């Protein structure tokens, strides 16, 4: 089982869209996939039309008194399940802080379902906190959507530095950055992409376009590949998944 976390310190960069759409693509390729919506906003849960409620409470999962498997809900898509968000996740940092060995809590919970899934996508809230550090410990790779702007460059480099400075915490974590919400009509986007690729050749080749098709996920409440099969963003997520396979 590979654990992939969509993560960025900055919000509104397409983390949830990445988690939902890549999970959908991976499942369509016959992989058994689980999405764990750790963001109390519950956007991934909303996209899958699942009620944002964990029976027994999110705290119980973190504490280990509730099996992760008991919180899983099937989505409408074959091979794709979800651990829904719970508004109480806003206290996740506090619960972890109270717990013994907080950094391994998420990893331990995931270990219970390791035989059932090939890929787990963790949709993380934007921040650097105890939750993120626990996610870093649980994940095999961080998928970092990055908008080609100055601010995004700064946050990407912040994350890179954090990982470099904390080798014990992140262990063998891979940082896989890619450009998200790209508008190729914008000269600034094109320029930043060139500059960033020069500075960070490890960035993935595949890019996700800024598209109303992706925004329409909120209307359709399903992954873009479900209602816009063959559309430009659907093809982009396919390409991203395909490239990820070579980097994992």
């Amino acid at each position, binding site marked *: 089982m590979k654990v992939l976390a969509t993560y960025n310190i900055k919000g509104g960069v397409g983390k949830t869209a990445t988690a939902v759409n890549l999970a959908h693509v991976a499942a369509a390729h016959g992989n058994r996939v689980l999405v764990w919506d750790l963001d109390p906003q519950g956007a991934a849960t909303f996209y899958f*039309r699942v*009620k944002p409620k964990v029976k027994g409470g999110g705290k119980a999962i973190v504490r280990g008194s509730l099996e992760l498997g008991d919180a899983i809900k099937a989505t409408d898509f074959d*091979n794709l399940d979800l651990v829904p968000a719970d508004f109480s996740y806003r206290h996740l940092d506090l619960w972890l802080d109270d717990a013994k060995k907080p950094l391994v809590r998420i990893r331990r919970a995931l270990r219970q379902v390791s035989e059932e899934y090939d890929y787990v996508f963790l949709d993380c809230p934007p921040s650097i906190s105890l939750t993120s550090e626990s996610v870093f410990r649980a994940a095999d790779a961080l998928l970092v959507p990055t908008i080609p702007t100055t601010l995004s460059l700064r946050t990407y480099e912040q994350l890179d530095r954090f990982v470099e400075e904390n080798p014990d915490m992140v262990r063998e974590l891979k940082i896989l950055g890619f450009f998200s919400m790209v508008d190729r009509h914008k000269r600034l986007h094109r320029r930043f992409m060139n500059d960033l690729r020069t500075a960070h050749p490890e960035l993935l080749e595949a890019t996700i376009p800024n598209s109303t098709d992706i925004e329409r996920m909120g209307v359709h409440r399903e992954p873009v590949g479900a209602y816009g099969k063959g559309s430009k963003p659907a093809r982009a997520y396919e390409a991203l998944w395909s490239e990820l396979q070579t980097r994992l």
Partner: protein
Amino acid sequence: MSKVRRYEVTAAGDFASVLSVLTDHLGLRLLSLDEGERSWLDTSTGTLERAETTLEFRLPSGDGTPSLTWAAEGRVLVYDPCVSSTPPVKASDLPASAAFARLVTLVDGGELVAGPTVNSQIAVLACLDEEEKTTARVIFDRSETIDGVTLPMMLEVLPLRGYEDEASSLEKKLKRSVALSASAAPMKELALQGRSSGRVSGGGKDVAALVPTMSAARAWRVVFQTLTDSMTQSFSGVLSGNDPEDLHAFRVAVRRIRTILQDGDDVVDPESRDRFRHEYRWLGDVTTPTRDADVHLIEFPELAATLPPSRREELASFNEVLLRHRSDCQAAMTIELRSMRRAEFGTAWLSFLADDDAWTGCADLADEPVLRIVLRRVEKANRQLVKNGRKISKKSPAIALHELRKEGKRLRYLLECFAPLFDEKALATILRPLRDVQDVLGEFQDTEVQANALLELAGELEGADDHSALMAIGGVIEQLGVRGADARASFSKTFGRFDDRKVQRAFDQLEPRKKKR
């Protein structure tokens, strides 16, 4: 994991009317409605079935895309539209994807063969909650085998993980709105059994339909259809293993089909005859150990009763051995009966019976009147039985009696399967003493087979140092020896009653007399 719940739709009405109840009355959303051919694939050793998965190849009618679906307990592991309109045979024919890679590993180089094939109308429906999220899927399926056997309409409820309560509530509503009866068998199994909700198109399965002037091939076909019906009716009982009578009836039908095939020389298409004789022999063989085990269990109490009461108690542990042995035999037989070999052969046999062209001008004597052909074969079988029966003496080896029993069976099956063609009185005159001969020969052979089997099974007790039980089994085997010797001693007299002038003359009177005008 959520389990599929299956129901047979017993409601009156056709597919469309039941579907409209599901959508209009129960508010289920129709996700897809497909029509076309579908086959279940597996390796010849049933690897996928043992792994509790199914691989289904669908060929939609019209312009639809063929597809391949690998599923476990209603959960689709992978679905893939295929380029080819023929099912994959080798692992390399499967689409390249992570899930199919798992399937390739499972198949492990074995070839895929198409099992039962049906023509289906399948509706997939979703039960939605207030967020329009699917909480359960419903598959409504109406299928018929490619030979025209209409299978019962099936309805499957697939609860989604985390929504089990919603699925239970849906089931309650379904039961209130549509007449359903719980069913354990998935459509693949029904197709495998060819269990019909009606009759095979082209009908005429009743042996009473036999008339002396009909063509031999047509008459043979009618007999085969009747016997196949009887075999099919007992099939699910054979698989469940609850009632030994089902297996007995199944084996009788199989043996009769084999015998009538054997006597179908120059009547049945030679290539098909050879193939099916071979397959029916195999089918008979795979059921023999279980039937023998049944006989041990049925007769053991009676045999044990011949021992002194103190010895009887010592046999309790051996009864456990017999039960365990029976259970092992049933398990081994079930694997064979669910195998692709059985599925392929069953489908081919039904196709053969349903194919009108396969029964016209298919062999030299196919179009001859049946009575003439059957009388000739009865005469030959009787001549052989009489000749070899007269040769039996007290010194004849057991094998000579076993061979004679087979010859007797052949004659008896010919007479019984084509009974409506013959003069009733003459037939009764022959059958009575013939059955007696068969009973004597059967008792002789059965006691011998049973004694050998008990001796072998007794070996399983030795490890436990159960000497008292072994001694008691020795007593039972001795009893069997006595019964066998009695049967052999009575052979001459019993056979004499068959080899009697009056009975033999009745063979000349088998042809019904023409009614005077």
